[in-house]
């Protein structure tokens, strides 16, 4: 099978490195792509489930822009809705009616939501959620899960990372996932001082297997929060609209007080949302929080259309079915080559790991070989699927996976 090279990506990166810190910063940095020279750095165009890099190589995309792409790249109904809104009004002195329509839609679709607030990025709304929890309770502490990701603001990062002070984490307490007793202990040790508990619906850190909640975990967390007046916050930024259109809490059967959305909500248009219960609406109103582009109409129109489309086509079922079949196929291909491929997390956003090598080097080699053959696989992060991924994509992916397993066996010889 032909493998790709990336001379134009490399050339562009060298230019970028002169004028942009890191060349490409943040989660799109080449640093976690191992080895970096097996991966493209720059995309030139995208359509449906695929993107093409600046060297003209075609990829079936299993990262979906790290989550935002849910209906496919250049999905016309959403793009048309955004274009209409751009033509009418986007960033204006007053917000447009579309803001109200989107809030009504979200409170209709998301089961626990009585109100909605819009921003741009996930971290905008996770931070806002902590502020509301503190306003509502008059308390300081926010309980988080070790390894959980809620953005890049100093309070979300741990001490030791550059630019983060010890004091930034003074009022955050991190406990292990699925450890209800640890949460109870924190609440007991900080009487009357825990404002909120924030976690993702299930644990999806990088580099390690993802973990579903243990039976009864969320029920117990919710009960303790309710009993102690602690605001229960779900960071549904990565999972949102991929597990359940009504919010991932419905998938796991509990009711939070605040839910943070981003990524899939707008199929790539820049928008995030915090939704909450009636009990917190007045507190949300009292926290002053805003941004220059948070009222822009086009992303709202895109989000409205995205949610309508996801509802109409039962996007969750489509992605779950595709993910399940892909998972089965890849596990079988791996087994045929004598490898144990473990898949954890939800099928719509699976995390894969070849268990035969605890260093991850074998898994990194395989993901790299797949990418060089046209299936963009990251080795460190959960993948994402979309409603645009097709049966043909899956068949091609399995062929690529098969050839890549052959290649890593040869590389080891």
């Amino acid at each position, binding site marked *: 099978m032909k493998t790709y090279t990336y001379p134009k990506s490399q050339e562009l990166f060298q230019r970028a*490195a002169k004028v942009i810190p890191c*060349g490409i910063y943040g989660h799109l940095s080449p*640093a976690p792509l*191992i080895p970096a020279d097996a991966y493209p750095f720059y995309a030139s165009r995208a359509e449906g489930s695929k993107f093409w890099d600046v060297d003209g190589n075609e990829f079936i995309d299993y990262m979906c822009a790290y989550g935002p792409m849910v209906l496919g790249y250049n999905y016309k109904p959403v793009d048309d809705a955004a274009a209409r809104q751009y033509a009418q009004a986007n960033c204006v002195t007053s917000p447009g009616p579309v803001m109200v329509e989107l809030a009504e839609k979200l409170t209709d679709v998301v089961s626990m939501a009585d109100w909605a607030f819009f921003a741009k990025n996930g971290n905008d709304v996770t931070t806002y959620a902590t502020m509301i929890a503190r306003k509502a309770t008059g308390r300081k502490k926010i309980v988080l899960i070790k390894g959980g990701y809620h953005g890049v603001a100093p309070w979300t990062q741990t001490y030791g990372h550059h630019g983060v002070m010890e004091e930034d984490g003074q009022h955050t307490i991190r406990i292990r996932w699925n450890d209800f007793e640890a949460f109870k202990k924190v609440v007991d040790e900080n009487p009357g001082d825990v404002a909120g508990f924030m976690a993702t619906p299930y644990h999806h850190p990088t580099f390690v297997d993802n973990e579903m909640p243990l039976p009864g975990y969320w029920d117990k967390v919710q009960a303790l929060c309710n009993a102690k007046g602690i605001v229960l916050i779900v960071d549904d930024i990565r999972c949102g609209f991929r597990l359940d259109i009504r919010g991932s809490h419905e998938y796991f059967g509990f009711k939070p007080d605040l839910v943070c959305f981003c990524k899939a909500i707008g199929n790539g248009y820049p928008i995030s949302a915090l939704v909450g219960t009636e009990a917190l609406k007045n507190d949300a109103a009292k926290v002053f929080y805003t941004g220059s582009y948070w009222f822009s109409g086009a992303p709202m129109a895109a989000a409205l259309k995205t949610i309508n489309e996801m509802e109409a086509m039962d996007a969750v079922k489509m992605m779950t079915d595709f993910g399940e079949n892909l998972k089965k196929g890849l596990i079988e291909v791996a087994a045929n080559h004598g490898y144990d491929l473990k898949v954890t997390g939800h099928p719509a956003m699976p995390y894969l790991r070849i268990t035969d090598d605890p260093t991850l080097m074998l898994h990194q080699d395989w993901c790299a070989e797949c990418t060089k053959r046209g299936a963009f696989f990251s080795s460190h992060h959960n993948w994402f699927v979309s409603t645009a991924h097709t049966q043909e994509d899956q068949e091609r992916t399995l062929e690529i996976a098969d050839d890549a397993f052959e290649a890593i066996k040869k590389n080891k010889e």
Partner: protein
Amino acid sequence: MSRNLVLANLNLYAVLPNLEELVRHDQEMALLIKDWDICIQFSALGGPAAFAEFKNGECTVGRGKHFSPTVKLFFATPGHLNKMFDGKAQPIPLKGFTKLGFLSKEFSKLTDRMEYYLKPSEESLSNPDFVSLNTLMTMHTAGRAVVELAVNDPVASHVSKGMMDGSLLMKVLPDGPAITLNFKNGKAGFQKGETASPMACMLLKDMDTANKLLNQKLDAFSAIAGGEVIIKGQTPMMDAMDLILDRIPHYLDA
């Protein structure tokens, strides 16, 4: 732990051991110490202690106190020791008064030579032999500094406590030099050379790349993207080590 105490630990446990490689690889220094039979003890009140023993044309630097040093150099405080490493103070000799002339002349030649390698000029970096030894010594200093900082620096110890157990290899391709850092329970151990089963690797394309990276003249992100630096395996270990390495300039370059 105070900054001076951390720095004193770094000076004795990360910088001083470079004498071993210096006399092994620099012919002039090898000749200088060929017939030395002396053990110099360094100890700071309320701080670290280490010795440098020269015998049979080799140097061994050890942690703690030697059972029978020829010369004992005492420092009233860790800061006093650090000033000596900066060439701004003299130690207090407690034993080996007859060797004071040796210390001021012969031994000083050795320490001056070590400084020459560890604080390179642009001109000296155009010499491939110099680059090789500077790279080796800088790599060893960095590796040993990680061990000390992981325990004594508040930021680094916080980072190292969250680090998984396992070995981390840093190697210049194709044939070295290499160092291995073995992490267990948040503490690190330093080992010269390779390990057979690292959990994470940082492979540096060649000596020039390694030298530039270790002397902070190469953007690591660009080098990774360009394939000059290859990282693989449990890269969270690499990220954590990088955070610890970034603490070194807070002490040694300050």
